[in-house]
């Protein structure tokens, strides 16, 4: 088993965790708790939440390009429009 394999692949529907904890969090408030889908898997990066406090950023986290329908985020919006955010794996859960 490849323990470091990405948990999600393009097309997977994902729900962003609603976390509200201290620290340097790079998941914007407006997508927390929202559901979108994976567009790209960017690979592993050092964890900014750890780097921000002078720590080594390990273990690396897989970064995803996650897309959302604008109308799912804000209600009224052009039906075709999308919002795309770079989100780390530990912020994502599978969605139906």
């Amino acid at each position, binding site marked *: 088993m490849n323990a470091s394999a990405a948990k999600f692949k393009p097309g997977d529907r994902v729900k962003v965790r609603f976390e509200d904890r201290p620290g340097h969090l790079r998941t914007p408030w407006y997508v927390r708790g929202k559901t979108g889908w994976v567009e790209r898997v960017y690979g592993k990066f050092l964890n900014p939440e750890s780097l921000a406090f002078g720590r080594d950023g390990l273990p690396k986290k897989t970064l995803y*390009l996650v897309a959302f329908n604008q109308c799912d*985020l804000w209600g009224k919006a052009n039906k*075709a429009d999308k919002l795309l955010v770079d989100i780390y794996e530990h912020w994502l859960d599978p969605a139906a």
Partner: protein
Amino acid sequence: MSTGSDDHGHDHPKNELSHHAKRIYAIRDLLLEKGVISDKDIQCQIEYQEARSPANGSKLVARAWVDPTFKARFIADPKAACAELGIDATAINEFVVLENTETVRHMVVCTLCSCYPRPILGRPPDWYKSFNYRQRSVVDPRGVMSEFGLDLADDVEVRVHDSTADIRYIVVPLRPSGTEDWSEADLAKLVTRDSMIGVMDPLPAIPV
């Protein structure tokens, strides 16, 4: 103690600077005194930054417009494509190219701070760093584009990228019609910095 090496002559006398503005001079002098950084380190960075400008991006876009195989290479491996044109993109961790089409427009923001592809395009404009842009771009991109002169039909898809991590985004805007036999140099003049951020299309071939 050195305080004179930065006196380029313009702007305020130092005693009129704001609290924080004054403090950077104190910090700089202390760092030099303690050998943490050197004058050369600072000069190096000033020169590095001065060498970076939207002209780099315009060159890349113009080449992508005239040469479809370059465009494909630019999208597949942006840093290597930059190197082909003598543009040093090594300081970017990861770099993604977003291609506009007749039916899709991209727009880039960093809502959490102001991340921007500085090694290619130089410093971001003041408006990109403003609270109004950071707040509105994600919820009202069409309104923002409209302010920059771009009004899109409802069936054009707008894709806003919030660059929250190490990925830096640059938009390849749509080539204006009527430019089929233009030179790369002339095409590059149509590629504004703001069109590579995505808030507007490039300049038209014929002035309005």
